[in-house]
């Protein structure tokens, strides 16, 4: 039982947004040009969903990216039983974490954004949205590819701690926020994205789905250890 399946995948980034069922769609202009310049505040729920935007408007940038990445997978969650949602784990990984919001809060402290100065709040927002009660994990890593999250999710599946798992890789940093404080460049990530993978056991899915082997998880884990020389070389 060492093979696991990617049930669904989604992505939003400068190139566009989409999921495993659609091709990557370009952002509409002028949003497209703003996003390319690193101005991310215009990212909007309404591009993906007709449903009530009220929670979305309160969210910070990190949660919006994670939330939109998960929302692109909504059709998968909507089809799930409660029993499956109760054992669906969520694992988020980021390099910059909530830093964009931290900077904004440090500049103008406001109660409504304080809860978002944590890189784990995005996990909470997604669990609320899709009623997921599974194991949870929130990692900060020196690499920005979310591979640790995948490795941990595979372990959950292997150990039977979760029946399915949602892995999230999020990098959220608005250009103007980064420019407003003199932080070293290696603390910031000018690459922004939200990406989500829904993993499960191979027995539960149609055969056409791609496989993620347990061995790949091991390779990902080794790549993403904080002892990666990358962490040292960018002093």
């Amino acid at each position, binding site marked *: 039982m060492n093979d696991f399946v990617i049930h669904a995948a989604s992505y939003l980034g400068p190139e566009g947004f989409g999921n495993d069922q659609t091709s990557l769609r370009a952002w509409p202009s002028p949003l497209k040009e703003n996003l390319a310049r690193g101005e991310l505040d215009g990212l909007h729920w309404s591009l993906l969903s007709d449903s009530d935007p009220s929670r979305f408007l309160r969210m910070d940038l990190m949660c919006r990216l994670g939330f939109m990445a998960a929302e692109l997978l909504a059709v998968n969650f909507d089809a799930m039983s409660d029993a499956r*949602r*109760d054992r669906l784990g*969520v694992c988020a990984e980021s*390099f910059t*974490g909530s*830093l964009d919001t*931290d*900077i904004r*809060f*440090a*500049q103008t*402290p*406001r*109660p409504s954004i*304080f*809860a978002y*100065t*944590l*890189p*784990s*709040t995005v*996990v*909470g*927002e997604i*669990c*609320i949205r*899709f*009623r*997921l*009660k*599974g*194991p*949870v*994990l*929130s*990692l*900060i*890593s*020196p690499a920005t590819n979310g591979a*640790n999250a995948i490795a941990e999710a595979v*372990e959950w599946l292997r150990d039977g*701690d979760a029946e399915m798992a949602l892995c999230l890789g999020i990098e959220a940093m608005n250009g103007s926020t980064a420019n407003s*404080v*003199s*932080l*070293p460049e*290696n*603390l910031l990530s000018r690459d922004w994205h939200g990406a989500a993978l829904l993993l499960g056991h191979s027995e539960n899915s149609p055969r056409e789905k791609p496989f993620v082997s347990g061995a790949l998880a091991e390779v990902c*884990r080794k790549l993403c*250890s*904080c*002892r990666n020389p990358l*962490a*040292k070389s960018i*002093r």
Partner: protein
Amino acid sequence: MGASLETAVNESAAAIAGCGSVSATGLGLEPLQSAVAANASALQRREFVIGKTSQSIVAGFVPDEIVEQLRAADSAHADSRAFLFAAAALKQAAKNAGRILDSVPAARRGFVLSTTKANIEALDKLVRRQSVSAVAQRQIQPAFLAADLAEQLDCRGPVQCVSAACISGLSALQQGAAIIRRGLADAVFVAGVDIISQFVLSGFNSLKSFDPEGCRPFDKSRIGLSLGEGAAAIVLVKRKLLSSSATLLSGCGTSNDANHLTGPSRDGSGLALAIRRALAKAGIAADEIDYVNAHGTGTPYNDNMESLALRSVFGDRVPPFSSNKGIFGHTLGAAGVLETVLCVAALENNLLPGTPRLRERDPVAPDSLLAKPRTATKLDCVLKINCGFGGTNAALVLEREAP
């Protein structure tokens, strides 16, 4: 399960080899244990300017003389208190683990850090255009703080950084145990750290979360929490490396309430779920738990929810339980590790901790709440719980083996 398989499983279980701490009680386990034995509070009052007003805050501050002592010993990190606290706790834990670590090469040593805001006070200073050293700025980034601490310990195995609000500590311990169980390391240093900063003070203050007189967990007239700062560290080793009877991390569980964002789900079902998962992983029944160390922040909402969760899991036989946040405050990312260290001490001393600052128990709280410490008749199995922003919950089971 055959005897050899059971032995193999047990040999790679995570055992506790050493602990360390820095908190409002001072430097090391001795002042911490003294405070527990005396049921004393180390919370202090200090004035802070928050926004445009000066406010009086009661919190668990690490004493100034300790901060100065740590700065003097490591001037390169003088303005990174997060590093200083964590490094001090780790040094103690390594020392307490002793010779065991000599047999574990660097490549087989892992490291897991738990922190909510790392060296955030450096960001406060940058925003105010005050000068901050390069290393203090670097350690605003939790993964870099983790990397630097791991490097100081010469840990060349897996290194992870968990940032998951108030469950970070238990989550980090869960990761440490998993790293050992999966055979990726034979020893893992787990550290939790957070510092009191303008950033966090202004945040909780704006949410009106504080009790201006200091927290009173599970008290009938409680009105809020008190922050704390500090660090704690635990060295986990593969059970096989210990010759005498050990204290094991035998099971962990996490969950999400899937409910409101900053208040826990009203019925405590999310926390109850995390507890049940931990018990299942440990392979023990609820009635085998001898003591529960609660999250017990002192907010009306949290303590009520925990009471409901405990009743849900234990029925009308809730084990003796207490909250220690009246001693050192809510230390956020350090809490799970610091409070587990306290549980390890309880197991070693056969002393059940009380609930400092309690005046009158809230009738909603189960009556097995311990107001004062007391010697235990049987103390082998402890449940530690924490809950955090975002509806997250975590539970951990500690078991002391028979000698």
